[in-house]
């Protein structure tokens, strides 16, 4: 019933509108408006309208900035972030000036030159000097912005400092894991073929390849044994054989992994530490994030530090920064005791893309070491 009434109202509305338009057309015609020319009254209201609109637009911009100022990110909490913030502010000033001046010119011209008393407009086709000027001026400004921009980018992307702490950020649908490199500051090797229930990052340490091979052996043996229980050569048996062959193929990959890397020292992974939900970093020391992904493209976005880098399956990407403000300091600066630095996903990665985050705590070196010592080492955890 409701649907029917809605449709009825809509149809009647359209019919009413049609009649309104026909009436207004006739009345306009009687007033000398053929529906094509723009009347003087219309011209006047339109030109005033445009000027008011543009001024209102400026006011809207200003109001938004004032009203929502607190929503903007706090000043950068990293070394390179400060350069980025300065560049952003300078660029914003430049573009706002351009924006305001061009809109004022637009408002002025449409107001002043609205169908004037003159029978004709001014027949000016071009002006070489003026055009040269307004091509050269933006070129100069943009050249400056280009040089400035490239320098700032290079500063952020420069080779990582020797003394950086290496931390891996491992992304998957739909969480992050932070892996610390331990005392040797070397992250252990990993391979996606090693991933299983207890080794969700596929880390390879001293024992894990052999463990994995044994695990496969056990599984294959179990499956072979279960063949006795089904009707021989029946459909179910075929399925089990298929499973066995698949497991053997996968075991083969792990075997190959072992072959290909006979000279690797996998013990570097033994002191790695895995954490979820929250990770800590010391203030004023460079941290080098090595970012990997398990399944699809994700992105490690840490906006308070002006840091972002995609996590791409099949490759390792990197981003480093040096945090300068501890969590406690930022909390008091913002007057918000609940504040936390955040890592969150910033590249569409599936259903729960919007809820893939990790807390970041920046603290003093001493507090950081204390926290780190309390985290279980991966190797011992695996055992």
């Amino acid at each position, binding site marked *: 019933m409701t649907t029917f009434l809605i449709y009825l109202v809509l149809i009647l509305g359209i019919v009413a509108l049609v009649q309104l338009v026909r009436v207004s057309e006739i009345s306009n015609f009687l007033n000398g408006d053929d529906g094509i020319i723009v009347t003087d009254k219309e011209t006047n209201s339109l030109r005033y309208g445009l000027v008011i609109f543009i001024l209102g637009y400026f006011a809207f911009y200003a109001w938004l900035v004032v009203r929502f100022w607190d929503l903007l990110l706090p000043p950068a909490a990293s070394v390179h972030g400060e350069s980025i913030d300065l560049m952003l502010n300078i660029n914003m000033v430049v573009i706002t000036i351009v924006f305001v001046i061009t809109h004022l010119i637009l408002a002025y011209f449409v107001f002043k030159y609205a169908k004037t008393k003159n029978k004709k407009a001014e027949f000016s086709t*071009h002006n070489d000097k003026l055009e040269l000027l307004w091509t050269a001026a933006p070129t100069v400004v943009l050249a400056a912005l280009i040089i400035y921009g490239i320098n700032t980018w290079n500063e952020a992307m420069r080779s990582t400092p020797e003394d950086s702490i290496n931390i891996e950020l491992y992304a998957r649908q739909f969480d992050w894991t932070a892996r610390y490199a331990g005392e040797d500051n070397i992250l252990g090797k990993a391979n996606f073929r090693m991933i299983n229930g207890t080794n969700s990052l596929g880390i390879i340490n001293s024992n894990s390849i052999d463990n994995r091979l044994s695990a496969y052996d056990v599984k294959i043996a179990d499956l072979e044994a279960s063949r006795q229980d089904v009707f021989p050569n029946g459909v179910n048996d075929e399925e089990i054989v298929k499973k066995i062959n698949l497991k053997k193929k996968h075991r083969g990959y792990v075997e190959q992994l072992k072959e290909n890397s006979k000279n690797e020292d996998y013990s570097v992974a033994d002191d790695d530490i895995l954490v979820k939900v929250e990770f800590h970093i010391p203030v004023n020391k460079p941290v080098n994030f090595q970012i990997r992904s398990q399944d699809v493209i994700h992105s490690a976005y840490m906006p308070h530090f002006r840091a972002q880098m995609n996590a791409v399956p099949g490759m390792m990407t990197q981003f480093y920064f040096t945090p300068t403000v501890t969590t406690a300091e930022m909390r008091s600066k913002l007057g918000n005791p609940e504040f936390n630095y955040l890592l969150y996903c910033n590249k569409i990665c599936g259903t729960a893309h919007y809820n893939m985050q990790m807390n970041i705590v920046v603290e003093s070196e001493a507090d950081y070491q204390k926290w780190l010592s309390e985290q279980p080492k991966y190797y011992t955890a695996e055992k």
Partner: protein
Amino acid sequence: MSSHKEPFITKYLFSYDHKMISRQFLLTGTAMAFIGMGMSLLFRLQLSSPGESFWILNFILGDKWAPGGVLDPNMYMSLVTIHGTIMVFFLLTAGLSGTFANLLIPLQIGARDMASGMLNMLSYWFFFGSSVVMICSLFVEAGPASGGWTVYPPLSALPQAMPGSGLGMTLWLVSMSLFIVSSLLGGLNYIVTIINLRTKGMKMTRLPLSIWALFLTAILGVLSFPVLFAAALLLIFDRTFGTSFYLSDIFVAGEALDRTGGSPLLYHHLFWFLGHPEVYIILLPALGLTSEIISCNARKPIFGYRAMIGSLLAIGFLSFIVWGHHMYMSGMNPFLGDVFTFTTLLIAIPSAVKVFNYLSTLWKGRIHFTVAMMFAIAMVSTFISGGVTGIILADAALDINLHDTYFVVAHFHIVMGLSAVMAMFAGVYHWFPKMWGRMMNKKLGYIHFWVTFTCAYGVFFPQHIQGLAGLPRRYYSYSEFPMFEGVADISQIVTAFAIVGGLIQFLFLFNLIYSMFRGPKAPQNPWKSNTLEWTTPVEHVHGNWRGELPVVHRWPYDYSNPDHEEDYVPQTVPLLEGEVGDH
């Protein structure tokens, strides 16, 4: 030209006549646009009040996709994906280029029709087919494609990674393949027609800027769409034939995939090699149409005609060497960040030149505020607003914090969703008399204009702030983040403007349809314009001119020429003694 009664099917459906085809493009593009716009209103409800129940969501999407009136997260992503796809391709590429290239090219260059009427007709029907397939993809069980309009693999390659990457994604790829064919057929036709079929006296430097723009757009399309096709083809191979162009070292849905050696970055490069010229394929016709409309309605020559051609050429060329600015955070070699920052900031120069030329055209003009002119002025304003934020995003270092946030959403919506759409509206209001032989209603047009322009900025300007606050795009909800507590307030402002702005488009639709049948009959040259299309009869004839083709003696911008009595001198008027016809 014969006057026998033409059967309905060849007159209205499978017509070879470019004028009919242009109307087909407009109507199909408009229909798709309303669907795309409807989708945006649906997901904006979720964004303004995350997790809240809305009756209308359940009414439209049903219990599966909006259980209890709350939008399902996968359907949210699908709506976002299909909204983007429809708006970028179906509205702004086919709807804008398809309509105006088909309408204006033969008419403004003085040709009987396009070089190949058959290819032209096929171009429309491939577009129609593509639209049908895209709509069909909305009804598949696992949902339509949902990886964003950019559909990056591995997400879009693996159905187990996201439900929408199943049949929905397959249909998306089929639809886009048909669409690419349509674009290529159209583009080839436009290029050949402009080069070969110009009438006597129509030198390249006497072409209206709309034709120059459509010409360069077609070249951009022909060079870049095949690369998208390649990207899509490799994606089809990865999805269906077990290849690994984009895949390597993946463990998903509980198993390690036997695909190694590929790289998702390959897709990025292939996609964005089209993706960037694509936005100029959208923008250039908008700029060309605006030049015509501003010049005609200011009764003044377009200022700096040759510079305008030069900037179109510069923008066209530069658009091919900036694609990496979509990839600053992709993990590609940081050196490329330097390269693309450099080239991208260069594009600002010809864009600025164009804006200054528009402003100078208005200077000392005699402006007629027709509805088309209002939209053209809005185009200039939104082009400035959107263009300047492009300068921020062009900088790789600034992109670090702004990439994939609402700042990017604001930027591209203001340049495409506002600027290009304003130009399209301006074009429709201006050339409606040529397309349907009637005038659109002026009062309804002004109402449509003011509400649209106001709501336009109301929707997109606040999103800059959300972006600067670190709010990511494509997020179903942000209520899981205490840091985004204030975002809901902005979202609600945005949604309110979006709903009003969306609803007023129905007034435009009403105006369009009403005027097609009952609008006042158009005079021969309602806007007193110089270009050739207004010399053809108001009632369409095949072959455009009843007798001989017109002969052109001058450039198209002799408005308010002091040597002539009238304030306009059509291109067919012979030169006076000692008069110069080109400037």
